[in-house]
């Protein structure tokens, strides 16, 4: 086997390493954990993966442009709280949720929160591209503001009792399979196809790899990045809709910690933090991996304290592999301005 062939072979394995890990873990759990492969449990795994999955699609898209989105979890919190607030009555018992009493039509409310998410993503995108503000900090600040507003609106209360029409996405089933699972799978397939086949997908990757070269080629990096954040905002609100439907409960702490998970899932799935590389399909594998582990740990009698460490180790492992990948591929050319860097990478 000459060097070229060996490289190809290794490359294929590394590219799809995540699926390999997934298969190995799945088999291990199937053998050692009782009831792991029952239909209900497999559906549970996919159910866990659905909300995280939707958020990860958004994060992956933003990552591919070479930026970060820390604000998505804030939008999950705000969209769920706002939706509840618009739909339920003020509670009569002190210390329970005070809805607005507006009792808006659930469909209208869905529309409202999706618009809210889109708008928020758009504003963030504009702040980052037009005003040249650092993406990391802008989305961090946005998260504080979004969650803060959620806390104000809910006054720290737990709000329960969302109407059935609203819960459909998160709670209903078609032929025994949860709607959220179907929708998430469709989204992944659809977005993956779009990114691989469409001009937008090429634009996304080009901008992530080298914004100036992309500009020279006729793309508009500012518009692309703004669009990426807008999509991210929309998906975050969508995920909120899904989550609320499943829990039928909203509290401002919903979504905490999901940012880390979405970034981790994307990275495990091969999305590069430098931008320009990766696919949504890989991110999906990352999401499945994290959900698999969570589910297995719930079924085994393991201290939930170990989950954190296990997750951390897996991420490090995935990163190591990502770093190794670059030895076998030509490096993507990244530009950095000499005197000043306006983005953190």
């Amino acid at each position, binding site marked *: 086997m000459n060097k070229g062939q060996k490289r190809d072979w290794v490359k294929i394995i590394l590219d799809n390493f995540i699926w390999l890990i997934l298969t190995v873990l799945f088999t291990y759990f199937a053998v050692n954990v*009782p*009831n*792991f492969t*029952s239909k*209900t*449990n497999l559906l*549970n795994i996919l*159910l*866990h993966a659905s909300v995280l999955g939707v958020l990860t699609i958004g994060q992956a898209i933003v990552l591919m442009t070479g930026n970060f989105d820390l604000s998505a979890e804030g939008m999950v919190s705000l969209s769920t709280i706002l939706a509840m607030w618009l739909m339920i009555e003020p*509670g*009569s*018992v*002190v*210390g*329970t949720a*005070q809805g607005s009493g507006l009792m808006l039509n659930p469909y209208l409310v869905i529309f409202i929160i999706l618009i809210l998410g889109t708008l928020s993503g758009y504003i963030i995108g504009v702040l980052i591209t037009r005003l040249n503000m650092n993406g990391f900090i802008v989305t961090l600040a946005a998260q504080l503001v979004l969650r803060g507003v959620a806390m*104000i609106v809910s*006054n*720290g*209360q*737990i709000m*329960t*009792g969302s109407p059935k029409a609203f819960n459909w996405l998160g*709670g209903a*089933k078609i032929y025994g399979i*949860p709607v959220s699972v179907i929708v998430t799978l469709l989204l992944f397939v659809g977005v993956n196809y779009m990114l691989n086949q469409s001009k937008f997908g090429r634009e996304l990757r080009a901008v992530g790899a080298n914004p100036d070269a992309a500009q020279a080629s006729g793309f508009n990096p500012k518009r692309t990045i703004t669009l990426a954040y807008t999509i991210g905002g929309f998906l975050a609100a969508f995920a909120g809709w899904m*989550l609320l439907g*499943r*829990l*039928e*409960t909203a*509290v401002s*702490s*919903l979504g905490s910690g999901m940012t880390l998970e979405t970034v981790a899932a994307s990275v495990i799935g091969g999305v590069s933090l430098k931008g320009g590389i990766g696919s949504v399909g890989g991110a999906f594998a990352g999401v499945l991996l994290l959900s698999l582990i*969570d*589910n297995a740990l*719930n*079924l085994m*009698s393991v*201290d*939930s304290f170990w989950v954190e460490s296990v997750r951390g180790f897996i991420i490090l492992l995935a990163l190591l592999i990502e770093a190794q990948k670059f030895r076998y591929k030509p490096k993507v050319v990244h530009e950095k301005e000499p005197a000043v860097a306006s983005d953190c990478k």
Partner: protein
Amino acid sequence: MKKNLTILSVIAIAAMLLAACASNTAAPAAEEAAPVAEEAAPAEEAAAAVVIGYGAPELSGAQGQIMQGLVDHSEAKGWEVVTTNADFDAEAQANQMDDFISMGVNAIVTVPVDSQAICSSVAKAKEAGIAFYTIDRAPIGCAVDMTVQSDNYLAGKQSAEAIVAFLTEKYGEAKGTVLELQGDLGQNVAQLRGGGFNDYMADYPNVEVISKPTEWDAAKFSSATLDVAGSTDVDAIYMHSDSVGTTVVLAALEQLGKKFARGEEGHVFLAGVDGSPDAMQAIRDGWSDQASSQPIPDFGIIADWIEKKLAGEEPVEGEVIQEGALWSPATIVMTDTGYQLNLATTSVTPDNADSAALWGNN
């Protein structure tokens, strides 16, 4: 350049002013659950005005009610109450305690976020000569003037009793599988609720208890229920908090197709501690079966003991009886963490779920 700078400074200073003004107008709007005392004059200026500093660990569900109960009892005595919310952060609570001490309040009442970490604040309050009281949780490792709490151990036991009764009826003997959704095990509240439950269950070795930690997080309640009830046949579920858990657990059961009403085949017996409005409604509707209701608003009676202390009186050990009160009989015991006033909990079942005396029904 000069223009930009001036504009920036003006904006910055304006923002500060706005924030400060917003506090005065927003505070009443934002804190609808608790009346906000006006900027209290230092206690030494108005000799008669008693000011109590209250530190809440969070404000949802039962905690909001606890705060309201204390405020009601205090205001009935003509006192002012300043309230804060630490939102689960022990350091934030320590900061708030420091603020109360700077303000020179007459007494501090708090529900500790962390029962051990609160001790450094207790020591400082003592140095400043301010009386210190805790509600709902006793401190660990230091002594306060008094603690009022429900008997969390009793609450866990009450739920266990109800579950064993159900299992015995279902199978003819005490056997089956129970899912225990635990709260944050770092707090003694969850430790006691779990302790009372599991100690009772220890007498029935044929009952299998699966315990999952949830740290009071709604999403974790959901996924634990989905995973465990989805892979095993669970006869009963015991929630450390039915404020957080009732709706979420029922939604999860519905997802699994395992939500059946009381009396139907396959009904999963639901029990929990708190006695929240959601739980009361669920019991009435037939989905849930038992709640160990805490006498939440009555924690405020600690104001009576604060009054005595300010007048120089010390509490006396023994029973406290008040006819007709749900929290009665309560007991006062002296422990190494100070006096403890333990209020009785009420086991709510479908028979007495309509009682107006329960906080979840008001």
